[in-house]
């Protein structure tokens, strides 16, 4: 009798554990689509400047706050989001939505993250063209462009210190060449990006190991951005 009940207990606890895992999996896979939409609507409407400035916020919203994905999964998401072209926030939204609710979730998340930017720009455009020639508006815009130039320069300096950290002369030469080709000869950027991809492929085929893994790059990005809220 005692033996039987302990076996039953074991059996039960095994089932309970499987069930828990199942429920958790169920919970991990499926989220309310509306909640998914709202979460990314928030991400898209609060973060300014776009790009990597959004990452810490996405982390907080999806990771520590809602616990939809754990750190490892988020790192996976960012690794893949980094590996394809396009806006990192949109890519992350797609991947997180996909992980939670499949293709529907992915599209809903992208819709949510894009919608605020879309609506705000459209509503500004309704009156922007009529006010853009007003002197103080003009000056206001010029001030913002000046500040942007400084911010772009700063992020370029950060990027270059990271990319050229190994003092690889070929890489430095490519960076300078890209700058001069666009600046002086207005060579189409698409050719330069393609050349960069080709250079990476040739290096790979020649047996060079890529020193920085994508995961490392992602981690550095997130560390960088933590310092600039």
């Amino acid at each position: 009798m005692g033996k039987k009940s302990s076996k039953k207990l074991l059996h039960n606890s095994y089932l309970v554990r499987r069930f828990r895992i199942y429920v958790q999996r169920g919970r991990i896979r499926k989220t309310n689509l509306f909640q998914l939409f709202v979460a990314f609507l928030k991400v898209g409407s609060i973060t300014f400047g776009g790009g990597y400035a959004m990452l810490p916020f996405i982390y907080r919203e999806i990771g520590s706050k809602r616990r939809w994905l754990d750190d490892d999964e988020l790192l996976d998401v960012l690794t893949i989001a980094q590996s394809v072209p396009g806006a990192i926030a949109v890519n992350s939204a797609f991947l997180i939505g996909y992980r939670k609710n499949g293709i529907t979730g992915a599209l809903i998340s992208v819709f949510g993250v894009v919608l605020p930017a879309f609506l705000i720009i459209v509503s500004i455009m309704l009156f922007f063209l009529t006010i853009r020639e007003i002197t103080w508006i003009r000056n206001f815009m010029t001030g913002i462009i000046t500040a942007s130039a400084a911010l772009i320069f700063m992020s370029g300096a950060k990027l270059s210190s990271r990319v050229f950290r190994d003092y690889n002369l070929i890489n430095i030469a490519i960076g300078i060449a890209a700058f001069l080709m666009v600046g002086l000869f207005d060579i189409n950027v698409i050719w330069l990006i393609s050349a960069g991809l080709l250079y990476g492929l040739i290096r790979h085929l020649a047996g060079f190991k890529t020193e920085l893994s994508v995961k490392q790059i992602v981690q550095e990005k997130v560390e960088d951005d933590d310092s600039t809220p």
Partner: protein
Amino acid sequence: MTLLLKLYFMFFQIGLFSFGGGYVMLPMIAQQIESSALIPMEEFPDLLALSQMTPGPIAINAATYVGFRSGGLLGAFFATLGVITPAVILILLLLKIMARYHKSGVVSALLYGVKPVTVGLIMIAAVYFFERSIFKGVVFSGDILKMGLSFFNLPLLIIFVAVLVLAWKGKVSPIILTVASGAAAALIL
């Protein structure tokens, strides 16, 4: 209809080749705007300014701006759809083949090759907007010889240096610096 398709494919191209974040895309967006002539080139700095002031990725802001300006609400929709499409297709592809190729390191090797190019591109964007605002755009257009000593704007240069120092050393948030610079320029100039 042709306009909508043109917008879609123009931003499809931009989306397909945009590695390394928003600022890196700026030279490409500028080139595409110039060659397509969908909006006047003088508005390109305004496009950047609006992107900086409003939330959301720069690529989305730019697509919405150019699309709406040239094709209304539908234009904005198609341009935005175009800039997103390549990433969506490539992510789905990557998820399917990831197990095999991601381990072999091809993807990170490709990204490694693009990195130095993106440094050059981001610096182009910085120089372009520096020149447009502080030197009033006269250096690149060749009008600098006619301008005498008034060719650059000292208050804006001071704003530039102040933003650089405050963002770098002071770790002040970019959005605060951006709006403050706009207000300062509106008051001083």
